[in-house]
């Protein structure tokens, strides 16, 4: 592989990063080639010592996505970060995806529980309308109490989701800095 091929492959692995960032990264590697050439190495030698441009690109993209998720933790950004980190290696399919799915399950069920409790008075009314005559005041009061509990759960879930996300992004960051990293496989 020569310099041009290396840079092309790297560039195509960097999709999703900003133009500016891509240019900056490519410049680093161009500088590296220039320094190597000055020492009398060939482009091919330098490229093979650098390792796989695809793997390097993946790693740069992963750390970029994690950084973005850390600064603005929207659902989309977090998903992209998870996806990018999983892409770092097969190993990560298990140690990233599994905890992520489990956490999502927990968060989702918490929200569902909160929402359904809050909606319970509505359900009592709906059922009273549908089956006229089955309305019991006790049901309404119970459901209103449940609604209150539901509100607390929702507020709790709001903070829980935030801290779970933050914790998970920290884990992604740690993971991305440790797993693989284009080091030579012995």
């Amino acid at each position, binding site marked *: 592989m020569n310099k041009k091929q290396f840079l092309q492959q790297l560039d195509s692995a960097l999709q999703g990063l900003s133009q500016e960032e891509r240019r900056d*990264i490519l*410049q*680093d*590697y*161009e*500088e*590296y080639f*220039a*320094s*190597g*050439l*000055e020492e009398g190495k060939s482009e091919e030698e330098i490229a093979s*010592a*650098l*390792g*796989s*441009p695809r*793997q*390097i690109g993946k*790693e*740069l993209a992963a*750390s970029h996505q994690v*950084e973005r998720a850390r600064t603005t933790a929207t659902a989309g950004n977090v998903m992209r970060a998870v996806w990018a980190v999983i892409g770092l290696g097969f190993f990560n399919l298990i140690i990233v995806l599994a905890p992520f799915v489990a956490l999502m399950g927990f968060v989702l069920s918490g929200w569902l529980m909160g929402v359904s409790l809050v909606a319970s008075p509505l359900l009592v009314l709906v059922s009273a309308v549908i089956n006229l005559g089955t309305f019991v005041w006790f049901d309404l009061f119970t459901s209103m109490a449940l609604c209150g509990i539901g509100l607390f759960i929702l507020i709790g879930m709001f903070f829980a989701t935030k801290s779970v996300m933050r914790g998970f992004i920290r884990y992604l960051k740690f993971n991305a*800095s*440790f*797993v*693989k*990293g*284009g*080091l*030579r*496989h*012995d």
Partner: protein
Amino acid sequence: MNVQFKKGVLELCVLVLLEKQDRYGYELVQKISDQIEISEGSVYPLLRRLTKEEYFTTYLQESTEGPSRKYYTLTDKGREYLHKLIEEWNEFTRGVNQLIKEGGSSE
């Protein structure tokens, strides 16, 4: 050696090399790969990450031979982090060496 293990240590290597003087990327990579077998391309992602975490600052300087080079300077925050890493490293190797010694002597 184990891949994960080396990657953690790479960070320490880069920081140590920058403690006494500013260096540019190629120089850093060559210094490290003289001692440890690494895939040279993996150092730049690390440099970018550590720069984002404000352990380094960078500046461009013209070189006599070719295009200008990006030099890395250790910040105070980076220095602090380096000292923490060195301490951890020493503690870790002391422990492992002790185990190797004990393991070897009991046979």
